[in-house]
């Protein structure tokens, strides 16, 4: 008896300490993470709100003003052109990428699972590894001249921007959709086949309706990525601070204006603060996207 008990004791003690070091370590990390997140939100919010509270620019002028001319006399700080630019490019990019992503995901999970997973998935994931400068440069060297030769004009503009974005968000959309599709219980599929449904009928009558909320999550996350993308879009969209009247006209997004001007303005100036306000708008939009995803997940569970 005694012999059996002896080796156990130190082991128990060891587990005890392991348990505690683990707990302490994770708690420190969590506290650190929370501090970082809250300080980022606080920093962006305090900088962004000082435009309204210190510099006396009204929120309605900022969100609804069509004129952006921070260096002019008098200066105008209307961010509406950038907000509309961001929304149009993001929505169009999602419109282009979602059907492509859905088809790729269906191909990988339903149609040719073996080859699809082996060839198509790595190929699509590869897309997410390419730096955005490269996308921007490809856009500038291939898409812009192409649009110019087809439609005339300059070629830069929202059309070029959303085409580049659509390719960039494709991996996000596809991989989330593929995950959602492969998480579907096998029984559903099999019972559909058992009832005599063809594969196509199974896909559009059973699989897509049941996984729809999860599929939409993919679209929303893709849109969140598109909304925050800066560099690639900045290179092809043209960046004129006006509400565009056509898809081929130069326009700006919130991110492109921030990256273009942030370094050239001095901290604390009204121009700089206005840029931080745009960053705040981006942050708020990210919150909205996250909330959307949460809501979709909740619907998914029921």
């Amino acid at each position: 008896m005694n012999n059996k008990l002896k080796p156990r004791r130190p082991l128990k003690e060891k587990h005890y300490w392991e348990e505690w070091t683990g707990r302490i370590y994770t708690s420190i990390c969590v506290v650190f993470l929370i501090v970082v997140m809250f300080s980022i939100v606080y920093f962006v919010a305090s900088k962004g709100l000082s435009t309204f509270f210190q510099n006396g620019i009204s929120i309605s002028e900022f969100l609804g003003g069509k004129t952006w001319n921070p260096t002019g006399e008098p200066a105008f700080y209307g961010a509406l052109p950038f907000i509309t630019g961001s929304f149009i490019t993001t929505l169009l990019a999602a419109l282009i990428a979602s059907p492509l992503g859905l088809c790729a995901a269906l191909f990988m999970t339903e149609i040719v699972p073996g080859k699809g997973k082996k060839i198509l998935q790595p190929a699509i994931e590869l897309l997410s590894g390419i730096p955005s400068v490269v996308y921007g440069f490809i856009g500038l060297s291939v898409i812009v001249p192409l649009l110019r030769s087809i439609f005339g004009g300059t070629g830069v503009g929202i059309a070029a921007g959303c085409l580049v974005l659509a390719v960039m968000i494709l991996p996000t959309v596809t991989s989330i959709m593929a995950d959602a599709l492969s998480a579907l219980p096998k029984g559903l599929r099999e019972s559909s086949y058992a009832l005599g449904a063809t594969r196509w009928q199974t896909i559009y009558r059973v699989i897509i309706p049941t996984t729809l909320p999860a599929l939409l999550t993919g679209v929303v996350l893709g849109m969140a990525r598109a909304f925050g993308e800066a560099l690639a879009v900045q290179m092809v969209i043209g960046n004129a601070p006006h509400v565009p009247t056509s898809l081929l006209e130069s326009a700006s997004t919130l991110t492109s204006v921030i990256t273009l001007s942030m370094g050239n303005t001095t901290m604390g100036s009204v121009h700089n603060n206005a840029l931080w306000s745009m960053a705040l708008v981006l942050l708020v939009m990210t919150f909205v996207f996250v909330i959307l995803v949460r809501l979709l997940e909740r619907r998914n569970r029921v």
Partner: protein
Amino acid sequence: MFKKLPFILMTLTFVLVLAACGSKNDAGTEGAASNGSGEAATELSGNILAVGSTALLPLVEQAGQKFMAVDEYKNVTVQVQGGGSGTGLTQVSDGQATIGNSDVFAEEKLEDEAKVKELVDHQVAVVAMAPVSNKDTGVEDLTKQQLIDIFSGKVTNWKDVGGADQAIVIVNRPSSSGTRATFEKYALGEKMGDIQGSIQEDSSGNVRKLVAETPGAIGYLALSYLDDSLTVLKYEGVEATVENVEAGTYPVWAYEHMYTKGTPDAATQAFLDYILSDEIQQNDVTELGYIPMSGMKVKRDVAGNVVQ
């Protein structure tokens, strides 16, 4: 033992991250300390952090490498970062950087006059800009008034300034850019708004690419970016050449500034002197497409007044 390995690794990373934060702060205070004291001339040491203008970045970087290779200055570390003129001026006046690189006078960027007064201007080179256009526009010479008409949107077709019947596409810099400020101040004489449909790019490489490829495009570039893919336009009949800038006949140029807060310490002063030395001015400055300070026969102040 092996089960614990990832855990140990994670802890190590965490500790290293914290340590890295700590050491960065240390370096900062050290730099600030050496800023104030100014050490003996025999053995210079210290950290120089130059932040700001991307237009000046290649020169400062190259000069910094050469400077550190000189035996006398082997204990001085020069770090160079981009970030834009505004960032450079902000960081130098807040004491985060030793040197703030800028394309424009601090007076034109900083709103707080007290902060401007603390800064000492070191002009290290001159950069000139030329209006450029797409090859097929049929125009080679533009007057100041024609440029104003084009950039203000009054003239929208090249045929109105003596060229082909082609719509004008403006390739501009963002309104906060130092290059644009220089071009507007010395070529146009006034600030311009942004025309609907105009293009804005921040990188000179992209501006060159777009002007060269887009039919009817007009833009402006620093002399170092000019090549055969575009037409370099004469300004009021004067060609944009180094000689014309030095003689004062071509007006579209600006100083490249390296600002320090107060009088620089010995190491920083040595670095600034080194950039202004013949070795850098005659070789690196011209190589990289800037114009050396020594060649300039005219001087200019903040208000734009030119003195012979």
